[in-house]
């Protein structure tokens, strides 16, 4: 069954400098039992897309297009309807731990509140369950009553993961869940997330900059750049036959292969170039690329790319 589907989704922000096109004409879907991983350029709209599903963006936002959770269009949902979904059916592991955690509340208290609110547990069982989840995500037992500022960066990150897992929701959005974790803990967290995704009723929307984590967790991968999905495909298609020049450049820039960045920086989302958004940095750009933006081409049934190289 299809759990999430975005159709021609656009998310804009008003800003002093002009309209910020954070997500532009994005089509994607996630089925039951599936993990979709977003990788790509920093500032390309990954977090905004995740926060759109949660409808947790600030008030200077506006939307176009459709975003379905089952048969409900989340863009049209009222705040009250969203409240009913958040925590129960949609949960998120946020990107910024210091913003996500209340400095005046212990880590355990955060979980207790969530469990009481969304799972209807009484105080005692919520407290027991909270301790259990925190220890399961690898927080030492004598630190579960710590406040955010007392924890190391990696422990704070694990507290956020615990908070996301507490609700046991159908959809889990995980925004850089392994950031700041040492590689042995990262391995544990990846295994923990894979265990959850073995449950065929659930689905995950994962954002990461770590190509190893992406390969480990993904069924399918979407590559984002300047608010667009430039390429998407199965994890095998993306890692073994990447097509888009940006995807190829990104994979080649991994530090295990030396320091080989793609030249230049991405365009401003307020002032996008005509044509393909990647063409100012692309070695293969032709006049056509500079004139109009490529549509999506199908390389296989699952492998799609927005690049004229595929059309010719």
């Amino acid at each position, binding site marked *: 069954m299809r759990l999430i589907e975005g159709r021609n989704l656009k998310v804009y*922000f008003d*800003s002093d*400098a*002009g309209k910020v096109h954070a997500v532009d004409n994005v089509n994607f879907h996630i089925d039951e039992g599936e993990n979709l991983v977003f*990788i*790509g350029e*920093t*500032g390309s709209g990954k*977090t905004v897309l995740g926060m759109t599903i949660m409808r947790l963006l600030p008030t200077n936002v506006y939307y176009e297009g459709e975003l379905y959770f089952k048969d409900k269009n989340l863009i049209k949902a009222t705040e009250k309807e969203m409240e009913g979904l958040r925590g129960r059916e949609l949960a998120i592991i946020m*990107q*910024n*731990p*210091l*913003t996500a955690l209340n400095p005046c509340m212990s880590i355990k208290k955060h979980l207790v509140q969530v469990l009481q609110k969304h799972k209807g547990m009484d105080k005692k069982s919520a407290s027991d369950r909270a301790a259990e989840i925190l220890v399961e995500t690898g927080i030492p037992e004598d630190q579960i009553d*710590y406040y955010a500022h*007392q*924890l*190391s*960066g*990696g*422990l704070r990150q*694990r507290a956020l993961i615990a908070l996301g897992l507490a609700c046991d929701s159908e959809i889990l959005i995980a925004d*850089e869940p392994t*950031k*700041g*974790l*040492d*590689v*042995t*803990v990262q*391995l544990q967290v*990846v*295994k923990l997330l*894979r265990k959850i995704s073995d449950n065929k009723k659930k689905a995950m929307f994962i954002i990461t*900059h*770590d*190509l*190893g*984590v992406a*390969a*480990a*967790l993904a069924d399918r991968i979407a590559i984002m750049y300047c608010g667009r999905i430039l390429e998407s495909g199965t*994890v*095998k298609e993306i*890692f*073994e036959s990447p097509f888009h020049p940006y995807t190829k450049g*990104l994979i080649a*820039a*991994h*530090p*295990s292969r*030396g*320091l*080989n*960045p*793609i030249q230049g*920086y*991405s365009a*401003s989302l*307020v002032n996008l170039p005509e044509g393909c958004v990647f063409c100012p940095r692309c070695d293969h750009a032709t006049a056509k690329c500079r004139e109009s933006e490529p549509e999506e081409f199908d390389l296989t049934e699952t492998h799609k790319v927005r690049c004229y190289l595929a059309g010719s």
Partner: protein
Amino acid sequence: MLEVNNVTKKFKSSFFNKKMFTAVDNVSFHINEGESFGIIGESGSGKSTIGKMIINLYTPNEGEIKINGKNIIKNKFTKTLEFKKQVQMIFQEPDGVFDPKWKIKKSMLEPYNIHTKLSHDEKMKKIIHWLEIVGLSKEHLDRYPFELSGGQLQRLSFARVLMLEPKLIIADEPTSSLDVSVQAQVLTLMREIQQRLNLTILYVTHDLYLARQMCDRIAVMQKGKFVEQGRSDEVFDNPKEDYTKRLINAQLPPDMSSKEKTAV
């Protein structure tokens, strides 16, 4: 340039509990001028605490820390602007660096207001110059922190430290929120600036690939102690300690083989 000798830092476990918890346990190392030194290791093992002691945010319970031969512990010199300008830290979580109620412009001007007597126009010119170097632009200055992406904030906090041209930088996970291409750009830039200004850098990172690229020497930390220290290539090619071997084995390669590695 930097000497850390037998430093120990303890924290009270909680307000009510008098029991002390040792976060950093008798650690010693040095970094030469112009060198890059890396600390890798377990989460919660005391890496950031070491950095915070070097910038004098925490005071060690025991041991000494010397910068250019001067002991900085309980030394009035560390309260001076000169010290604060020379020794700078790029913090692990950029969302803690920027005041959420201030526009970015105000946060970026602050270090120049404190440390320089430049005119407003000169300050703005320099700030925009640094923004462009890290791939951002003027338009980002009028935003509030919540209106920027994680990686944009991280690059701003990077620029905010580099623009003072310090002598010693503690870079605590400075690129953890960047995609690998922008990370490579920022690190290349860091190398150029290091050579130009003969900067000394202490990297703290969980990314072993990065540590190997960027650090001349590294130390591996576990439970408050350095378990192994040496030239980066030697430590990675020939790890001596079990813990180091475990770390190297737990790395996820950027290809399909990480799927098998994490199968449950």
